[in-house]
């Protein structure tokens, strides 16, 4: 990783350490949020950063995962791991269903279609009878905590946050592997020029559909983790603002760079937290929540103007192929054609 990323990463860890020294539970909560959002932003990175699919309905897929996991646990006593699995499968199914007609759309139209789908999911959950199994506008209660057998609340929280971080690690590993393989090249090729990708034989529709489906499955896992952390779900939690925050994380962090996206996630969440704390101490001439939104908006504008590649820029796809190139260069085969300057 390059210097900017490394320095900011150290700062992030240091800030979390300071919070941990003051209040362990608060720091654990912070870590959970970073892990939850990082899983979501990594899934968007797969879809947009690598494949160029502008999914503006991310929150809808998180909601599907959260509600499937929540309902299975609350109403049917399904154990936690199965709930997470079901959340991933259900969100993937919704992703595929949405993707079949929409991934052919141009980037901007896909954005419009998905933002509507995200809202439709929330409105559907909200405007169903309150006696339905997910509780309609009243929300869903009674989700069983997976670590109920641990009596000490702090230890229980620690166990759950630890599990969430572990799942985040798995997702990170998987997307990093996808990205640094011949597959990563194909996805980026589709993103850069779909017609050219087709012209070199890539079945782009299939790749785009799979990318959206798998990205949705990962968002579903994030949703399930959310459900089992709060043990209560309300449709109005899943508003488009969540999607926009995830986009900000990806843009700031660096598209098609997973480490950068995780860093971007941590930074956005820390900015949110720190401004939340600061508003108790600083008097502002305007509503602090608006100020927070303005701050994030300013951040996007500054990044798009001055550092569009994000904090940690995209790197070439890392496969063993580079060793072959290196060897050829050492053998002196990579000479520019004679007589021409290059």
């Amino acid at each position, binding site marked *: 990783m390059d210097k900017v990323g490394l320095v900011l990463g150290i700062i992030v860890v240091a800030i979390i350490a300071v919070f941990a020294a003051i209040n362990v539970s608060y720091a654990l909560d912070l870590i959970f949020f970073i892990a939850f959002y990082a899983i979501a932003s990594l899934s968007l990175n797969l879809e947009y950063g690598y494949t160029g699919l502008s999914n503006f309905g991310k929150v809808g897929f998180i909601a599907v995962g959260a509600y499937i996991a929540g309902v299975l646990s609350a109403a049917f006593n399904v154990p936690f791991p199965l709930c997470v699995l079901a959340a991933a499968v259900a969100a993937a199914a919704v992703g595929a269903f949405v993707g079949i007609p929409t991934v052919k759309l141009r980037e901007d139209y896909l954005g419009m279609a998905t933002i509507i789908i995200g809202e439709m999911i929330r409105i559907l959950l909200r405007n169903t009878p309150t006696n339905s199994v997910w509780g309609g506008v009243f929300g869903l209660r009674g989700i069983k905590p997976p670590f109920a057998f641990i009596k000490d609340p702090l230890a229980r929280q620690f166990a759950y946050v630890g599990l969430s971080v572990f799942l985040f690690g798995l997702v990170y590993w998987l997307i990093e592997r996808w990205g640094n393989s011949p597959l*990563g090249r194909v996805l*980026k090729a589709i993103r850069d020029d779909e*017609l050219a990708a087709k012209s*070199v034989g890539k079945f782009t529709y299939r790749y785009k559909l799979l990318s959206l489906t798998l990205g949705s499955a990962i968002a579903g896992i994030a949703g399930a983790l959310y459900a089992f952390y709060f043990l209560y779900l309300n449709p109005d939690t899943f508003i488009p603002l969540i999607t926009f925050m995830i986009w900000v994380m990806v843009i700031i962090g660096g598209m098609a760079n997973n480490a950068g996206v995780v860093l971007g996630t941590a930074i956005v969440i820390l900015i949110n937290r720190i401004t939340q704390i600061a508003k108790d101490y600083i008097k502002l001439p305007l509503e602090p929540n608006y100020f927070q939104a303005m701050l994030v908006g300013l951040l996007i504008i500054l990044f798009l103007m001055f550092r569009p590649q994000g904090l940690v820029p995209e790197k070439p796809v890392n496969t063993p192929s580079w060793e*072959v190139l290196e060897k*050829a260069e050492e053998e002196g085969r990579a000479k520019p054609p004679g007589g021409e300057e290059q």
Partner: protein
Amino acid sequence: MNSNSRNSNYILEVIDVRKRFGGIIALDGVNLKVKRGSMTALIGPNGSGKTTLFNVIAGVYKPDSGKVIFDGTDITGWPPEKIYHRGLVRTFQVPRMFKAMTVFENVLTAAKGNPGERFSTSPLRKIWKAIELKIAEKAVDIMELLKILHVARNLSSAISGGQMKLVELARGLMSDPIMLLLDEPAAGVNPTLAHEIFGFLRNLNKEQGISMLIIEHRLDILFDYVDYVYVMHRGKVVAEGTPKEIVENPVVVDIYLGEA
């Protein structure tokens, strides 16, 4: 190539292809045939329908009527990716790079049959490493041949236009094509390099037996290399013959002088 396994003398046959965009008739019943193993040129003034014909052959557009037969297979209406796997590869008039990727990655991406390109197998390097290394060797060889190995690490958006043309050609060669459709392979490069490119294409054509159909405006250079020429005008083939015949053909002279 398995050139003897097919009975036809022609690698590509375009039969009465028509294509209109609204009120504009872009292709008005085009007929042409490319001999197996030949280097055939397609010329004509701007707007005569050459690139549209390429797009129809390569599957970007579906023709309104007519047929495209490639290597004995009716490929009319096939999508571009399927046509590529059948062995027919095209390049673009304006090079289309995977611009945020390096030249090396651009070329590697075009390889066929890499098992690491699946979501299921790509996380497990063991499965695809050996094939990936072979593909990389091939990519290095092709880039060396085309004299773009020294820019392999550059972003493909940060090389010269002529080099981009060569990257497109390198991508095309990665799949061991049966036939290449080349849309102005030497546009925007100096005459020396243009001769070099055509000389190289001629070698490929002779040594590897790759058939070629080439759109080119620089007839002075083109005619030194090709076997046969088709001339298009207003969506139709109006003349055909050897370069010598074409140069002397009054219809062709008329079209070109009339345009000027």
